[in-house]
Structures are given as structure tokens and as C-alpha cells.
């Protein structure tokens, strides 16, 4: 077997050294009734690399890929073109097969990268500091709510109706156990968000207000007033960014007073990957740093006085604090953070701004084109690269009908909000630099045909 270096004669020799007659002697502590005599039944034996590759090829061919079809899905996961050098670098064994950098002398590559990543994320979000990444945006969002609770010692969190429904679900799941109270609502298919509602209910029990920016329907709204009111009541503003490319075109949440900014970093470097692994981004004001969850990389010096980097503030973490830790998290999304950081380094300020402009311009053109279709209305006044259409009929079967024509035509709100009749005609359409005008035209023509 190709991954196992021991030969039968090695095994014999080693058993001899150990003083065991057979391998079974080493499993003597397993209760007899739990010992299996041979390979587990009902499972195949080992397969050649060629056979495995062929099996996966066959499965892969059953999926409709984003690159080979007109593609307009978003809703928290965006298709962007990732430069080939990103994947090349993350596949270097020294990054791919390295361990968590607990031994900093031989992990400076990972550590310096994380320090650069933290700085990039903090700057992008307009915050003082950022951590070394979380599992994904949805768990980062929940961790931020928990962190706000620890800081404010309050348990009531107000969630904007524009927050991604999966993020809301994750928070609801967790809140069942922690005793947090969540105030949430369904979004409305209108150009306005529910910021009026939020402003109305912020009170002295509120730990935090959670606002997505741009929101689940693609709308962009100034969060400054919410920040001001929250701060006046001793509450925090948590901003959630699921499309970081937008921040090349619009103000950073930190500029508007957000205390914690979390996000999904998948857009840069990571790719769609059917939902994971992704990379959670987490940034905040400096004064809250000791309440942050997750790993942090910090600068220091070595015994020769040379600059170097280490994981730091680990007294917050589970392996030191055990049941008193700020989080049970033990893993970040290091390799995805690397991909994110490389992509952002390649883009730089100039490239990110150009990429954002390009996304926005193409989305504007597409929105105009699609809303020309009889019966189709554009819900948004404002948007970045994603917007909501109100269709004259239920959107979910329309999406399926488009798929039959090899068009991946957006995400129906029916999929995101099952059972919410008020939203079922909504279709979320994302347009990135990967969509050609021919793609838009194909999509528009098919949509018109399906709707009539």
C-alpha cells in the first residue's frame, strides 16, 4: 500500500525489538468483544490511485460547474477569478503540510503570513486589530455576538433582518444553549433595510446590534446612526461583511463606528468549493483584544534580537484556560487565510479598487438589463455586485428551469427563507468580473422566456 512505508519484514523485525509475538499483542487492552477479526464488512478494499481518481472524475462530472456555465449565484459565496499563483503557493508542502505554529522558531513562514493577514484584514475592515482567522463567516458572526456579551455582560442581541439567514440560524442554534436572547425579523422586499426598527429597539439591555453590509438583499446602508445609538446605550455594533471585495468600493465598517467587524473571506483566494472550507474574518477595536476568540499572531524578538512572530495571548484559549476560555476554538482556517492574503497582496490597493469598480459596473449593467424584462423589478436602490429582483412568479422553480438550460441564475429567496411567502418571488443575482455580457444576455433571454 503506497502510503505505508513498513514492509512485512520491517514489521517482523520491529515486533521482535518490542518483544511482541504478533500485532495482536499490542492491542491487548481492547476488550475482546470489541476486537474485530478482519477488515470491516461491507466496505471495499484498497484501490489504486487511478481507480480513485476515476471515481471522483465520474462524480465531478455530475456537477454543473460555475466556470463553464453562465453563473450568477452569491448570497454569501462569490465566484471571483483567483490567480493561478495563489493555488501554486498554497500547495507548497511547507505551507500545506505544516502544523499549527506552536514552535515559532520553525514556523516563521506561517507566522509572518498570519501577521500580514491580520494587518490586511484590520485595514480592510477599518479596525485596529484582527485575528488569525475563524472557521467561516457564520461562526465568526456568532463568536462576535458571544464576545459582545462578554464585554457588555448583557445577553440581548439585535440582528438586522438583512443578516444572512444561515448566520441567523447559526446564532439561534447557539443561543439555545447559552441563554442569549436574539431579536430578529424577516427582511422585506423593499429598497429600505430595517435600520429604523433597530434604532427603535436598542436599549440598555442590548449587548450588540448585528448589521450585514452590504446586506443579504445586496442593499448598502450607512451604519453610523446605529453605531451612535448603540454606543449611547453601552451596546456594540457588529458589522458583518460577506463580500469583502465590496470594501474596495465602499466605506469600511470601522469608519462608521463598528466595534467588531466579522466577515466571510471566501471571495478572495478561496473559491466556491461547494461551501467550504472558507475563512472567517474577525477584527475589532484594540481595547477589546483580550476578549477576542481565536488565534492571534504577534510580533516579538528572538534571543538574538531579531524580529520574529509568535502565537500570543493564548491565555484566552482553551488549551490553557480550559473551561474558562473565550471560545473552544482550536483551529483556524490557516491555509484559506494564506490564500486570502496572497490574493489581496496580488491585488493591492489599486487592484482591489479596480476589481470592485469592475464588479459594480457589471452589476449595474446587468441589473438594468434584467429589470427590462416585463414583470421583473429591481428591488434595490443601492447595491454593490449583488441585487434582488422581484419576479412576477415564485423564484425557486424559475431557478430550476434556468438550470435545465444550463444557466445558474442566482439564488431564490425561497431557498434561503423556506416558507416565507412574502419573499418567495425574490431572486438574488450576483454579478462579478467572471460574468461576460454574453452570459448576462443568455440569462436575460432565458429568464424572459421562462416568465412568459
Amino acid at each position, binding site marked *: 500500500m503506497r502510503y505505508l512505508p513498513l514492509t512485512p519484514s520491517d514489521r517482523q523485525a*520491529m515486533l521482535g525489538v518490542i518483544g511482541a509475538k504478533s500485532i495482536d*499483542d*499490542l492491542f491487548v487492552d*481492547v476488550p475482546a468483544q470489541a476486537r474485530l477479526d478482519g477488515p*470491516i464488512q461491507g466496505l471495499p*478494499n484498497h484501490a489504486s*490511485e487511478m481507480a480513485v481518481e476515476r471515481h471522483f472524475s465520474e*462524480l465531478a462530472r455530475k*456537477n*454543473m460547474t460555475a*466556470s463553464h456555465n453562465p453563473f450568477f449565484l452569491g*448570497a454569501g459565496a462569490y465566484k471571483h477569478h483567483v*490567480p493561478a*499563483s495563489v493555488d501554486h503557493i498554497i500547495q507548497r*508542502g*511547507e505551507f500545506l503540510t505544516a502544523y499549527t505554529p506552536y514552535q*515559532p522558531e*520553525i*514556523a*516563521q513562514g506561517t507566522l*509572518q503570513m498570519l501577521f500580514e493577514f491580520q*494587518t*490586511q484584514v484590520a485595514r480592510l475592515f477599518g479596525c485596529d486589530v*484582527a485575528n488569525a482567522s475563524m472557521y467561516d463567516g457564520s461562526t465568526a458572526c456568532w463568536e462576535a455576538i458571544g464576545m459582545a456579551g462578554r464585554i457588555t455582560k448583557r445577553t440581548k442581541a439585535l440582528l438586522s433582518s438583512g443578516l444572512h439567514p*444561515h*448566520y441567523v*440560524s*447559526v446564532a439561534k*442554534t447557539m443561543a439555545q444553549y447559552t441563554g442569549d436572547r436574539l431579536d430578529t425579523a424577516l427582511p422585506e422586499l423593499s429598497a429600505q433595510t430595517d435600520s429604523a426598527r433597530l434604532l427603535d429597539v436598542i436599549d440598555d439591555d442590548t449587548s450588540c446590534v448585528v448589521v450585514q453590509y452590504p446586506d443579504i438583499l445586496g442593499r448598502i446602508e450607512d451604519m453610523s446612526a446605529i453605531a451612535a445609538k448603540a454606543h449611547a446605550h453601552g451596546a456594540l455594533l457588529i458589522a458583518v461583511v460577506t463580500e469583502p471585495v465590496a470594501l474596495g468600493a*465602499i466605506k469600511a465598517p470601522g469608519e462608521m463606528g463598528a466595534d467588531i467587524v466579522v466577515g466571510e473571506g471566501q471571495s478572495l483566494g478561496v473559491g466556491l468549493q461547494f*461551501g*467550504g*472550507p472558507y*475563512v472567517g474574518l474577525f477584527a475589532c477595536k484594540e481595547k477589546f483584544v483580550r476578549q477576542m476568540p481565536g488565534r492571534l499572531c*504577534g510580533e516579538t*524578538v*528572538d534571543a538574538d534580537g531579531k524580529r520574529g512572530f*509568535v502565537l*500570543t495571548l493564548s491565555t484566552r*484559549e*482553551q488549551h490553557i484556560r480550559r473551561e*474558562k476560555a473565550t471560545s*473552544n476554538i*482550536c*483551529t483556524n482556517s490557516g491555509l*484559506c487565510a*494564506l490564500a486570502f492574503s496572497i490574493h*489581496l*497582496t*496580488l*491585488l493591492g*490597493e*489599486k*487592484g*482591489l479598487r479596480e*476589481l470592485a469598480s*469592475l464588479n459594480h459596473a457589471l452589476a449595474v449593467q446587468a441589473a438594468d438589463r434584467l429589470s427590462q424584462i416585463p414583470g421583473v423589478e429591481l428591488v434595490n436602490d*443601492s447595491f454593490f455586485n449583488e441585487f434582488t429582483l422581484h419576479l412576477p412568479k415564485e423564484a425557486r422553480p424559475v431557478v430550476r428551469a434556468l*438550470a435545465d438550460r444550463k444557466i445558474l441564475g442566482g439564488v431564490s429567496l425561497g431557498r434561503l427563507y*423556506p416558507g416565507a411567502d412574502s419573499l418567495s418571488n425574490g431572486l438574488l443575482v450576483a454579478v462579478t468580473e467572471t460574468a461576460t455580457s454574453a452570459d448576462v444576455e443568455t440569462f436575460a433571454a432565458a429568464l424572459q422566456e421562462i416568465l412568459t
Partner: protein
Amino acid sequence: LEEALIFEIGTAGTTGVDLAEAPKVASRLGNLERHRDIGLPGLSEPETVRHYTRLSRQNYAIDLGFFPLGSCTMKHNPRLNEKVARMAGFADVHPLQPVETVQGALGVIHELAHWLITLTGMKAVAMSPKAGAHGELCGILAIRAALTARGDARSVILCPESAHGTNPATAAFAGYAVENIPATSEGRVDLAALKARLGPDVAGVMITNPNTCGLFERDMRDISDAVHAAGGYVYCDGANFNAIVGRVRPGDLGIDAMHINLHKTFSTPHGGGGPGSGPVVLSAALAPYAPLPFVDKDGDQYQLVEEETAGEHHGSSFGRMVAFHGQMGMFTRALAYIMSHGADGLRQVAEDAVLNANYILRGLEDVLEAPFAHSGPCMHEALFSDNGLADGYSTLDIAKGLIDEGYHPMTVYFPLVVHGAMLIEPTETESKATLHQFIGALRSVAQRAKAGDPSLKSAPKYAPRRRLDETQAARKPVLVWREPEHAVAAE
């Protein structure tokens, strides 16, 4: 050559990406156009490739050498798995595409689920947890949901002293008080003490088996029976499944929930700290409470059971743990690994892992104290203590000395039940020759520590950095780069 930070070598005007020109449109950004600079440096593509290539060479990695990390299972990462994960049909698919367009992707999840269930002898598996600790949370939430469903609020989770820190942290997060279970002199759970503590307030126990001392919990079945009899559930930390895969099915030991670190047992790459993936297998008692979404098969078609469809046959789910469906990229890799080994090969994995660990134990026990070696063979990892080192010499010195010998240190100071613990896990993907060399190197370092060789105190000398000042880092944390206040003189 030292590698500067991107902020020191990049400029805002440089980019390594060419883009089509944006068409001119009136912007609809809600009057929130960004005016301030972000402060992101750019590098051209050649500079970028060189920066990260050079950085990478400051790392140690499994591709470069042996990683004897107990409890962390650093094994070979086959490149086939990387290739498979990058097939467009998996990498380039959106999680919210209509299920008709992602049948192959759902098929991967379902096939992997089938393997995991069968290998563990359990009833169901929750695939969405994103890491081991996330999986622990899933298991504990399932226990909590099951107890809630029967109207039986309980408040305590029991953990052995030797547990991973994530265990108590997870239990605490789910609202439980955590109490320790003492260990026997043989490094195992004290069954009598456990039984004595069980009662109507105990929701369950969290056990690691094989445990973090590298020993199989001989009384596991009795433990499970006692916990069940007392109305609780048994959670097993699956971090050490590598030792028993294919030889023991946790379901046969009475376990109710166990996470599986795909990056440990099934070799998805650690990537410098993640991403991980932690599916949780569940017993029949807990299966009804598994989180959403999950994949089901209906005739030839795979279905995704989400919030809307769950009601029909999975209404007791405790809810959703993540956006989307989990770590697809890790599923493809793990499934490729599992299929490559097959049922016969996975059994061989456990055997070789245990054989290698005992080879190491035997090769070192005369120079390093092995506190539990008297009680019999170890499983997949060998545990040593710092007893017998010269005064002022510690496990840390041995660890740093190993770096100069060309190895990553073993796991140190864990588990806490042994003083100055050194936990060594060779895994099945190391050759006899590698183990032999490593034993020689560690013997030499251990003898220096016992003899009080002062040069050991300044190790490592041959690493990219000498010992780093962690105290300074924590006292005044510098977590982001800032422009030096006094700009350096122009070239």
C-alpha cells in the same frame, strides 16, 4: 536573507493582477463610496511568488521531515487528494445551486458519511462541523437536545484530567459545569470514582479513547454502561481514532457521539493550523437531534435536507451550526484517502501506527521515564515525563534541542497528568529508518539534558530563529504592522 513584510516592500500603486477595464456607469453605492485609502500594499506577480516562496522556507512541514506530535497525528498528505479536491466539479460549485446540479458533490458527502458510519459502527453522522472542537460542540449539543427532549435538564459534564482543553471549553460553552474524573496510576479513567460521581445531574462524560496518555481505556464498555444506566450519554473525543480505525468500532464500546478529525485520521492537510473538519458520528439515541443540513439518498437522487424539508422526518434537529454544508474540500480529500486504503488498508493503518509507537517507546524508555510503560503496550503514541533531567533542564529544552537535530518537537506539557509530558506519535506513514534515526537523535538530546549540557539551553541554533520572547509578545501585543513613526531616509 531576511524576508521583509509586504507592507515594507509593496506599494499602493503596484498590482499583480490585470483586469478588464470597467464600463462607465453611474454608481449606485448608496453614497457610501470609499474615500479613505485602505492601506493595502500591492506586489507584482514575480515579487509575490518570491515573497511567499521564501516565507514558506521558514517553515518545517511533514513534506520535509518527521513530526512526532502526540495527539495531533501529522501524517503524509497524498497529492492525489489535492488533485481530486481541485476538480472543477467540486471546487467550482456553489453551495446554493439547485440540488439537481450538484448530485456528484452530494454523492461525495454521502459516500464519506457511509464510510464513517460503517467504520465506527454508529447510526448517523453530522458532516457540517468545521473542526474537531466544533464537532465536540455538535456532540454536546446533541446530548443536550436529547436530554431536553425527554425533559431531563442536567447540569454537569465529567471529563478526565487528561482531556484535551477543548473538551471542558466545549462543555462550558454549552452551559455545563465541568468536573474532573481522576486517573488511575496506570493512566486510565478511575472507573470506581466515575461510577461514584454519576447521578441525575450528570448529562454525560467526555472521554478520549485511546486516551491522551496513548492508552486504550480498557473499561470503556463498563464506563458506557454505567453512564447510560445513570441516564447520561458518552461523548468520545475522536482525536486518536488513528490508533484503532479498522480494528475497533466505537459503537461497539457504547459511545453515543464521537467527532472525527479528518485532518488527523484521514490525512487532510493541517495547512499551518487549518482548515480542519470534524464530522460527528452519533448513536441511535442521538441521531434524531443531528444538525441541519445533511445529505439523504432517495432512490438514485441525493437530497439535501435543509430547514424546510427537515420537518417531515428530522424535526428534532438542534439546528444549524454553519452556513452551507461543511468542509466539502476536506470531504473529497478524506474520501480519496479512505478509498485508497480501503477496509484492509485502514486496519493496517492502525496496526502500523501502534507498532511504530511501541517501537519508539521501547527505543527510549531507558533514557526517558515512561510513566505508564509498565502497564503494557501503548497505542499510537508514547508518553514520557521529564523526571530525571538535570536540575534546571526541562521538556522545553529537549524540544528545542530536537529542532537542531532536524526534527519538529513532540507534543510537550500535554497531557497535564504527567510532569513535563512529552507525547510522541509517529503515525503509520513513517519508515523504520526514520524512526531509528529519530530515536538516536532524541536519545542524544535526552542524554544532554540529563547531563546538564549548557549548550542545550541556547537551542535552537540552526533554525530560522532562536528562542522567541513570548512574554514580550503577550505583555504589549503587536498584532498588526504599523508604519514606523520616523520614516527611514530615502535610499
